[in-house]
């Protein structure tokens, strides 16, 4: 028998998903742009608005939109646009710190638990318990324990995200552990720690990244709902939820009050979803 292919010719059936390009071009790019716009608004927006979000302006009670106050003023005579822009910062702070922290704790616990069967069962039951509390009820309960405020919103978000990420990573690890390349590493005599570090974890993290994007928008929701319940970010600090809560009381007077936070939330949610979808697609799901 003669070898037909002496030299490696152009690879046949090569399916190279050009991930970064696909991601950055389609939905992912739009998503990044949407989130980027909001982040930018939060970062530089307050510099462009002449009003201090905390300043209670004399004789400016519940003014409608005008040239001076593009979105009007609220019940405490503060410029709504200034508060909206400053509020974005607070929400982004919550999203970008609490969610990763929750994710980190969840992932650490979820991954560690897979090492030992008894531990695994215990951790899984614990996650079940945490998941079993409806999010808002958990929020009300925790806020009652630690008192309302930004930090309590963060704690609530962390608690909500822990089981979500814990379960996700655990499932991914269990699946990856069955992969042939893990067996391949075992068969050359690699240690457990080596296998976990170089093979299992890096390949389990992708669903986590997708979930991270989705959870970012969940955090914005939780903040809003907690503000409406009066247990969110404490006044006078502005947040999307706080601005929305005020706006809801004056919808009949000026529907535009509510438009600001709603548009921002929608843009954020859409942006994060698109990113998650694109990440999903890039994964080949």
């Amino acid at each position, binding site marked *: 028998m003669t070898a037909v292919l002496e030299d490696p010719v152009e690879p046949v059936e090569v399916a190279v998903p050009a991930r970064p390009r696909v991601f950055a071009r389609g939905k992912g790019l739009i998503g990044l742009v949407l989130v980027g716009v909001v982040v930018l608004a939060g970062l530089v927006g307050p510099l462009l608005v002449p009003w201090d979000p905390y300043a209670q302006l004399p004789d400016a009670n519940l003014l409608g939109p005008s040239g001076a106050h593009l979105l009007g003023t609220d019940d405490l005579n503060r410029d709504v646009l200034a508060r909206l822009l400053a509020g974005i910062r607070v929400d982004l702070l919550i999203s970008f710190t609490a969610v990763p922290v929750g994710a980190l704790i969840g992932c650490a616990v979820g991954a560690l638990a897979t090492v030992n069967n008894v531990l695994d069962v215990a951790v899984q039951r614990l996650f079940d318990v945490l998941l079993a509390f409806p999010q808002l009820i958990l929020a009300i309960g925790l806020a009652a324990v630690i008192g*309302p405020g930004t930090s309590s919103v963060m704690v609530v978000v962390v608690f909500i995200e822990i089981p979500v990420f814990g379960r996700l990573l655990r499932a991914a690890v269990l699946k990856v552990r069955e992969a042939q390349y893990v067996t391949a590493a075992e068969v050359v005599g690699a240690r457990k720690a080596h296998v976990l570090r170089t093979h299992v974890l890096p390949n389990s993290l992708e669903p986590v990244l997708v979930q991270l994007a989705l959870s970012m928008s969940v955090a914005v929701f939780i903040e809003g709902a907690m503000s409406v319940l009066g247990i969110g970010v404490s006044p006078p600090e502005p947040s999307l939820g706080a601005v929305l809560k005020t706006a809801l009381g004056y919808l009949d007077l000026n529907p535009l009050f509510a438009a600001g936070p709603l548009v921002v939330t929608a843009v954020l949610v859409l942006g994060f979803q698109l990113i998650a979808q694109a990440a999903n697609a890039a994964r080949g799901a």
Partner: protein
Amino acid sequence: AVDAQTAPAGASAAPKSGGVAELGVNLDLVPANLFTNSNVSITTVVGLVYDSLVRYDRQKLEAKPRLATAWEQADGGSTLNITLRKGVKFHSGREFTSADVKFSLTSYADPKWNGQLAGTAKTITAIETPAPDKVVLKLAHPVSNLLDLLDTVPIIDSETAAEIGTGKKFVGTGAFKFDSWRPNTDLTFSRNDDYWGGKPYLDGVHVRVIPDAQSLAAAVKSGQVQLARGVGYRDAEAAEAAGGLKAIPLEGAELQAYVGINVSAPGLDDPKVRHAIAYALDKERIVKEVYRGKGYPVSLPWPRTSPAYDQELDNRFRRDVAKAKSLLAEHGAALPEVPLAYPGTDGVQANIAQIVQNNLAEVGIAVKLEPVDSTQFIKQLIGAQFPGLWVTNHSWAQFTPSTLTVSAYPFNAKRNSSHFSSPAYTAAADNAWKLPDATGAAATAAYKELSNQLLDGTFLAEIGVVFEQVVVRDGLQGVDWTRRRELDLSKAFLA
């Protein structure tokens, strides 16, 4: 309305019988608190079901007969002889007698019920019932606010009193019989045909619990309820503008918005600083923007109808930033950041807190807002645990002035939330209380002294006298209320 004078404006149509009035309230009943709490649904139930012995007129502090037809002092104020109305029946059908008065007053003094006027009730050393329609009260010493007690204590049926706490039965002699309570849902009442004051026009009353204030406003705007209690001030204003209904301030049943001050907190122990705080408050703005003008700014707790009201004294703390700053300068040392507690879920208080923070910042006092949930707020109020300032409402100043200083917890001369005590204030409070009569020259002098003490001490800075308001559709007329905000629908009708 008991008398035409106090009937709300607009009651013009001729009364006619029939129909069930639909009411909406934003808070549900807490049966165990029936005699201590004064939330909207409790005061609705008490007003519909129960009667008191006397009832104050809403303009002047003058008691009118209810279940008592006559009363007179003896022994220089240490004895009160009361004659009761005859032929009055409880909703259970049982005849009302002097024994029921004794039972009700005794129950009220029981610490378990923890009635607000327990201090006054405890001065009653003996209750004699010489005849079914006669009651004699023996007092340890004369008190100026005995009639407040008789206005406040609901006459309850001794046979069913045990079931009040469970919310299963409320039996009184009032215009409406209590039928049922479904927690978080509704309360139903039907007409008491045997009511001593005449058969009510309404067939019944249905009270719905609508916890969301905005939904409550929507319900009354859409006509689903004819009367709503607990609608926000701005919502009420907007609803009124839309037409078809009125927001009626409950005049005579005034509330006071105030900033409480813990005088043992660092910095706040100096009366100069407390005065500076009082000067710094923008009371006009709070009344105008938060209460939408439903009230007026004050420096003292007394409403304008109170015998203690003194315009000159009341004008003492008008907003004066310069004065506040100079007082602070006199104090010298820089103030640490002062915590300000408020009930976090109460939008009105949250707004007041933010305005106060802003006002104080202007004169150079840094304030840190601390929202606490309502339960914890009450606990801290009772336990005098507020670390610095707090904002909330108080009442009782609409009654005999001495009632405030002996009963209301923030003012109690012996022990109050502010940790304030001064022999002069204690003496002035005691002096005003132990008067046999609530009005007259002696009383006026005593009240003036009391007011001066309050202003000097300033352990709480009053913001304004404000009103609860009920939003009533034009179709429901003849709505009345007591000084304790109890709803009286005995003469109400659906036009």
